[in-house]
């Protein structure tokens, strides 16, 4: 029998090889793929995310856990598709126009992916119309915007206005983040949510999708 508790531990410790190996075993034994994710993998991301928030671990540990999680998820995805199981939600993420920083945004993308959401990462310096086009053409639940520079934070508002102009603002929830972004700024520009860090973003997306 595949040791699923060890899968949980291997994700927390960022051990990609072990997590992939146990996932293969579990799938070969026809373990319910959803049970693997819900009972063992997502709780692991919750544990590492909590440690990150309490500064017990830092960016390297978080990235390694997300990588182990992603390695296992890639193996499981075809089985989910086979059963017609949909992702928990679809997120489009990008760093706004004029801003070229991608580490923080990628961290949030990894955490969301690791927590079972489908994430489309549009990269950096993303113009508003590109985001609007994605929202118009696909099923999207969440638009996540990142800005490191205070000079580019106003571009977040531009995205929201562009979504309104295109008549798709109500189709999605918009969340914002970055070192100088605050809840106050989020409210000012009419975004739906703000999170201080990558782990908080996961909780925020969960909350918005169940609201």
């Amino acid at each position: 029998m595949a040791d699923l508790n060890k899968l949980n531990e291997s994700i927390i410790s960022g051990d990609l090889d072990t997590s992939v190996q146990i996932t293969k075993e579990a799938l070969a034994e026809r373990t319910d793929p959803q049970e693997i994710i819900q009972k063992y993998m997502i709780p692991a991301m919750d544990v590492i995310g909590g440690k990150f928030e309490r500064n017990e671990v830092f960016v390297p540990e978080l990235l390694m856990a997300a990588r182990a999680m992603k390695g296992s998820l890639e193996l499981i995805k075809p089985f989910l598709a086979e059963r017609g199981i949909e992702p928990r939600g679809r997120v489009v993420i990008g760093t706004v126009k004029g801003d070229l920083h991608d580490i923080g945004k990628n961290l949030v993308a990894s955490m969301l992916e690791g927590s079972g959401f489908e994430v489309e990462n549009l990269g950096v310096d993303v113009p508003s119309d590109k985001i609007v086009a994605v929202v118009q053409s696909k099923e999207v639940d969440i638009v996540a915007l990142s800005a490191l520079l205070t000079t580019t934070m106003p571009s977040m508002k531009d995205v929201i206005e562009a979504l309104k102009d295109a008549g798709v603002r109500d189709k999605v929830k918009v969340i914002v983040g970055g070192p100088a972004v605050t809840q106050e700024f989020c409210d000012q520009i009419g975004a739906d949510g703000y999170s201080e860090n990558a782990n908080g973003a996961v909780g925020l997306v969960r909350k918005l999708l169940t609201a």
Partner: protein
Amino acid sequence: MRTTGIQELLKSRSLLFCDGAWGTIFQSAGLKPGEIAELWNRDHRKKVLEVAHSYVDLGVDMIETNSFRGNGIALAGIGLEIDAAELNRLAAEISREAAGDKCLVLGSVGPTGKILMMGDVSENEMYDAFAVQVQAIEQGGADAICFETMSALDEAELAVKAAVENTNLEIICTFTFTKTVGGDYKTVMGVTPAQMAEKMLSAGASIIGTNCGNGMETMIPIVKAFRDFDSNIPLLVQPNAGIPKIENGKTVFPETPDEMASHVPGLIDAGVSIIGGCCGTTPDHITAIMNNSGRRE
């Protein structure tokens, strides 16, 4: 370990001064959001020279260069396929021209924007990119290399090594630390001041310190942490003027020159050797800092 200009100066004076931010002044001079300031070395040389002069004229002991993001990997990461060496050489030439022999020139080198463990770039690629940048800065006439705003030990070690092996310049390295939930200071990668000091000194840096962060006051416990590790090593501190806020669509750095200057005595007591400024600081901030240090011109 190399000793040249800065350490010579520190033999006769216990406290030296460095310049403040450049980017903040560039923005008021018309730099647009997302525009790469380093391109101004080529396209708006006069404006860059003016900023350099505005700090040299204060009587600081050293100024930096407009090359923070001039690493080939960082430039490529933002879609600029450009001659990184040229931009860095120009940066050093401009600062040298402004500084003359009145003050020293520190070649500013920021992070690549890549995390080694993610495997996007190899150690060799990272080393080579730093080597190109520091060589160009030396060619342009700088006196020292200042690696700054680092957070990862592996990247900073490669950077320092590239400067040791490819230039004859004095090497400074500063990291950005933030306060953890537990109250001590670490980088986003989890590195403490003591860990940073140990690795950077053994890699060949002769001056270490901290920059950016969360305002002047938070620099004091970081300096103390460095001093607990080593009581003699020269320490450079370049705080930002607090965490920026947006007010009426404009970026505002909360700490005024006087507020920043009020923490200078605390920093001196903690054992700082060189004080300058990072994001949001201006010639006015540096003037206030110098005036509150007990040093009178």
